[in-house]
């Protein structure tokens, strides 16, 4: 039954002859392990096509969605981390195998007449593969891909005459953005694969035409590829696959850095390891000589590689072979040396390590936020993931703008001249201050701010009454933005609060609240809605207002911050950060899956 169906198909397609051709290719000198590279490469390419196709079903190419979709693949989808990890590391395996294949062809002298075109197609395959790496690196739109690719396209832009236009076309404009992603994606999945298949087909057809290059002492009679050579090829491919799987498992899949952030100045950009030698080479040519490192020498090396098969025409055959091998090993040795040097340079480069550490924290934070059911990636895009995280953004702005004077949990960046802002606006902060306003974390360091210390010396309130007042004042923080003092005082919870009277009689001697207290004993900031976003915003924007610290001497006063220094969104981030209103980092950092 099965056989007759097969016959029926064979009669109409002749597939058996095709299969026969494929499997029974005559191998000159018999099956050999050294012939396995080509088929291992073909296998690896098929793996890339397969995993790549799977990734395409989940990847979303735009600057706002790319990171989120890759995150989703790696952290949510079944086996997504594995599929993406395989794609990531198989790409690297492909480079390694290509290099080994080139070496083997070179040593065997298989690039020479009449196989010049084999060599050239092989070189074309090498460049197409590098093209895959370069374009693929950007697609997750994370910090790593963003910065590394930016460097690469800037190098392209340095090319004479057409450089700038070429760069603009590739990048899809002057700035990196949506068009960059779609263009790179198009090249990666639409242009390069058919190109690679075409080169591969031509390469294989030529290998078939000329046969493998047997070693000199090999027996003259060829033997068919099936089963011995096929078996060897399969063993090699399975070997390669196993190594890749082990690497993927060891790394727990491919890394995903924090979402691309064009404003982040200190990201330690590094290319993928096989470009590290070029990266290091560049450092040898500072300033105006740079083009020599980026274009002239690499270009010359490529040119020589392409011309190697023609060397025979002007030099004796074996001498040309010797020169060719010498050249390629020289280049590889140099590249190896530079790679090691690049790695060692980074090894004890403290600023680099610190920046990398920071980048890793951002990465883990971004992933934790995206995973959290209550947070997730904002609809505007992954670029806003960390910018809307109080722990990241609030802390960053606080460090940049405020910690020169203030401290946070005791930590500041200069000589302390103002309070500790940790948990500012909460009952904790308030109760602590009422206990000891002269403490270092309150008004000890703020010049001219001795009002609460004066109050402390004279007040008759007992600790339990302080608790009640603290409860009352801590409630100010939740007064909505559109509620006026009189409306607020009319609310039942406020009017009947036991702290109201205490506040009026004691605190009200200095602190004015319309309709509740008159002040007058000495100047003091207004406390209505203290700790709420509006109180806070006014404190930051107009510390010199009469209901803030306008009564102080200018030199003692906190400077005002306009929206150009602290945007409204950032202000909100600071407020939430100070009140600990954000997703708490897990005790153990989320595993890099």
């Amino acid at each position, binding site marked *: 039954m099965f056989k007759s169906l097969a016959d029926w198909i064979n009669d109409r397609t002749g597939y058996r002859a095709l299969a026969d051709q494929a499997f029974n290719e005559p191998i000159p000198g018999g099956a050999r392990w050294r012939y396995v590279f080509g088929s291992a490469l073909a*296998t690896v390419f098929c*793996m890339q096509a*397969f*995993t790549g196709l*799977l990734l395409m*079903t989940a990847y979303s190419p735009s600057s706002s*969605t790319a990171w*989120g*979709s890759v*995150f*989703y693949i790696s952290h*949510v*989808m*079944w*086996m*997504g981390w*594995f*599929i993406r990890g*395989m794609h990531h590391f198989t790409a690297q395996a492909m480079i390694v195998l290509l290099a080994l294949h080139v070496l083997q062809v070179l040593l065997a002298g298989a690039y020479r007449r009449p196989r010049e075109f084999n060599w050239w197609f092989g070189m074309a395959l090498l460049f197409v593969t590098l093209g895959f790496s370069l374009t693929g690196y950007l697609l997750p739109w994370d910090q790593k891909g963003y910065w590394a690719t930016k460097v690469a396209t800037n190098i392209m832009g340095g090319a004479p005459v057409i450089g700038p236009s070429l760069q603009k076309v590739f990048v899809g404009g002057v700035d990196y953005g949506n068009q960059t992603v779609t263009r790179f994606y198009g090249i990666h999945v639409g242009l390069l694969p058919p190109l690679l298949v075409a080169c591969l087909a031509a390469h294989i057809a030529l290998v078939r035409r000329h046969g493998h290059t047997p070693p000199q002492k090999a027996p003259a009679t060829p033997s068919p590829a*099936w*089963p*011995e050579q*096929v*078996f060897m090829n*399969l*063993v090699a*491919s*399975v070997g390669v*696959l196993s190594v890749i*799987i082990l690497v993927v498992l060891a790394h727990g899949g491919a890394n995903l850095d924090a979402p691309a952030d064009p404003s982040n100045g200190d990201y330690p950009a590094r290319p993928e390891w096989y470009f590290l030698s070029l990266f290091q080479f560049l450092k040898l040519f500072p300033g105006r000589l740079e083009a020599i490192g980026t274009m002239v020498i690499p270009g010359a090396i490529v040119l020589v590689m392409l011309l190697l098969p023609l060397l025979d025409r002007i030099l004796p055959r074996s001498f040309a072979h010797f020169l060719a091998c010498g050249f390629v090993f020289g280049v590889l040795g140099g590249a190896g040396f530079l790679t090691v040097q690049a790695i060692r340079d980074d090894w004890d480069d403290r600023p680099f390590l610190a920046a990398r550490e920071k980048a890793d924290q951002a990465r883990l934070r971004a992933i934790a936020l*995206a995973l959290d*059911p*209550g*947070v*997730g*990636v*904002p*609809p505007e895009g992954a670029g806003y993931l960390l910018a809307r995280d109080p722990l990241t953004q609030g802390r960053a702005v606080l460090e940049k703008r405020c910690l020169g004077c203030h401290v946070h949990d005791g930590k500041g960046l200069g000589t302390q001249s103002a309070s500790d802002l940790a948990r500012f606006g909460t009952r904790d902060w308030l109760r602590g201050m009422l206990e000891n306003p002269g403490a270092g974390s309150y008004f000890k360091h703020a010049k001219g701010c001795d009002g609460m210390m004066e109050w402390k010396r004279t007040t008759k309130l007992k600790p339990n009454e302080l608790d009640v007042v603290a409860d009352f004042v801590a409630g100010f923080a939740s007064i909505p933005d559109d509620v006026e003092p009189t409306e607020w005082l009319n609310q039942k919870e406020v009017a009947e609060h036991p702290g109201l009277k205490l506040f009026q009689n004691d605190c009200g001697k200095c602190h004015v609240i319309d309709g509740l207290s008159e002040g007058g004993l000495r100047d003091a900031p207004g406390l209505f809605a203290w700790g709420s976003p509006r109180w806070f915003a006014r404190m930051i924007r107009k510390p010199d207002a009469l209901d803030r610290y306008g009564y102080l001497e200018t030199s003692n006063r906190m400077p005002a911050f306009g929206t150009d220094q602290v945007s409204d969104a950032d202000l909100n981030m600071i407020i939430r950060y100070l009140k600990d209103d954000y997703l708490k980092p897990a005790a153990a950092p989320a595993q890099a899956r």
Partner: protein
Amino acid sequence: MLRRELLARLSAGLGAALSLPLLIPGIAYILSPLRLRREQGGFETLTRLSELEVGKPRLFFIQQERRDAWVKYPREPVGSVWLIRQPKGANPPVVALSSECPHLGCAISLKDESKGFICHCHASAFDLSGKPENAAPPRPMDTLEVALGNDADPEIRVKFERFRTQSEEKIPLV
């Protein structure tokens, strides 16, 4: 010949070893959506009883937070329901009908002069209680759970759910 045979068998095994480690995860990857569960929303407040006229259906939007794969959306309309106030004394006093057609999921709208409901995709027709009026829909319009407050003019709250289309029974989508 024995050697040939052995190599052939080993090759077959190696072929499997080469394809399965990618094929099996690949299938799992494609099947990932099967792992997802729809978040079951609670009751959403839509309006107050006094806003509804007896026997006159009105369409209300359901606002919910939503997660679409990696994106978290703030509260926004995710669906709509028809609310129909019943004559005095009826239980329940308000009926909520999902506006999603049980046939193939298109949106159900009101017929001219509010005499019933119609789905413009395949002309499924229903009367004002949601009962089918022709053979297109497999079942009546889907009723949703309604909860009313206790005051004189109670808030109307509806539990929004979606159901499998094309089936004669009302099966919630999870």
